[in-house]
């Protein structure tokens, strides 16, 4: 099956600001890998349930008890930018 990737769209979805040359290179490489990966489509799988997880377990419960949490200062010390106890980022919404 020939693979044709809209690589610019995929890069946008993945939040990767890539140059045109990089996009060309990655498209070619991804297409080669996907052509190989598409071999899975040759296997008949009608009626086969998908496996998302090898343990086939569902819920994992534990007691709801208060335990020590991470030190706020130690965590925020790793932030590229902060304002008090908040992570600071560029504008998400434009000013009204």
């Amino acid at each position, binding site marked *: 099956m020939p693979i044709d990737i809209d690589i610019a769209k995929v890069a946008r979805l993945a*939040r990767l600001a890539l140059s045109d040359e990089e996009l060309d290179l990655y498209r070619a490489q991804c297409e080669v890998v996907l052509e190989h990966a598409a071999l899975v489509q040759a296997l008949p799988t009608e009626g086969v349930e998908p496996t998302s997880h090898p343990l086939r377990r569902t819920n994992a419960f534990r007691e709801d008890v208060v335990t020590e949490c991470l030190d706020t200062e130690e965590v925020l010390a790793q932030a590229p930018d902060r304002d008090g106890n908040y992570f600071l980022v560029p504008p998400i919404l434009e000013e009204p």
Partner: protein
Amino acid sequence: MTDLADLTLSEATSGLQGGEMTAVELLEAVHRRATMTEAQLHAYLNIDRPGAARAAVAADSALGNGAAVSKLTGIPVALKDNLVTRGLETTCSSKILAGYLPPYDATVVGRLREAGSVIVGKTNLDEFAMGSSTENSAYGTSRNPWDPDRVPGGSSGGSAAAVAVGSALAALGSDTGGSIRQPASLCGIVGMKPTYGLVSRYGLIAFASSLDQIGPLTRTVPDSVTVLEAIGGYDPADSTSHPGKVPDFRAGLGRGVAGVRIGVVSELSGEGIDPQVQAAVARMVTSLEGEGARVTELSLPSFEYALSAYYLIAPAECSANLARFDGVRYGLRRHGDTVEEMMANTRAEGFGPEVTRRILLGTYALSAGYYDAFYGQAQRVRTLILNDFDSAYGQVDVLVSPTSPTTAFEVGARATDPLAMYMSDVCTIPSNLSGHPAISVPVGLDDAGLPIGFQVMAPALGEEVLFQVAAEVERIAGFSDRPALANSRADI
């Protein structure tokens, strides 16, 4: 006199507990070995001399005053740098995490510390554990101690090289598609991937969550058991952690293989396997049969599709897991006028080519219109692989194969061809898709003097029989060769 850096873990435990050496002396020997070899090997990203010295002194104090000690008390251990260590830089070999000081220890790190082990430092890996050679590290390639022109394998290549050369007595790695077993094979040591869920992954920086597993790299099979005993067992902080009883890893050691049913996987022999690797594996199978094992050849037809399924599932999960690296809470940030631009600029600069490629692949495979044809189909194939394993384990106790289709390849040989690199994992990937335990044991050298690894696979929670067979493979092989670099001296 034997250099202490050449001791196995169990020899060192006896020496420490018998008062023949101190943890400080052992650490000094390991540091000397690192000093002699690191310029060529680059196994470590970061050697934590002050932290290790403190731990060694504490271990000696515990050993000296009759306090409760474990087999790991005073043992120098290396950690793959995708395991978070509180206050000690953890980068995953990525620029996006340069300078990151985690605010907590991974559960396995905490368990090693509680057991009294001495953490030597953080080892090199392919960026975010994506690769089979360490060539994808943003901080330079590690080298193979048997031949520094060759790769140590990957992604846990730094951990494997350190243990092989003696700059650690044991190490932890992570295995998503073979990343413990393949480098262990290429470096002539023992590498083990436990059953999915047996070892907590809290604090392992996630790559592909339905496949990742932490495990030990050691020089011997009993040493692998010792490390697994320390790190295994339920952890409420990891919701995929196995809540039930942990197998008795040690029970099978020394029991031999008489009556054990061994299956040779047809799909993992012959075509695509280097003839010398194939011959070494076949010789070992014959020897096991000579020791009373009942050998049959089995076909697991879905294995032909394992690599294809893996290269849909792993990138899909990676694209989701690595969304957290967005320049907001930790690591690199690059300027952008909006938050979205900031994130896209940060990620484009912070991730290397292989990680970028896999994020793109995964994003595509999960995107609307392609999900069912790629990711959905790969998950159904995964079911077929599990069914094949289940049917095989109805007939045999363990399955065997080569660990890696070839011995160590030269640096650069596969760097520009992603698909050729991916083929390195063809024998190891099925056990990740199934979540089953598997181990690589060195069985000999090829004509170029490079180690060959033999893989044993067992059903879920089948560690007892896995270690039983692995120990017999180790005994039969009698592999005692040491890499050239382990014999280097400071004065040459």
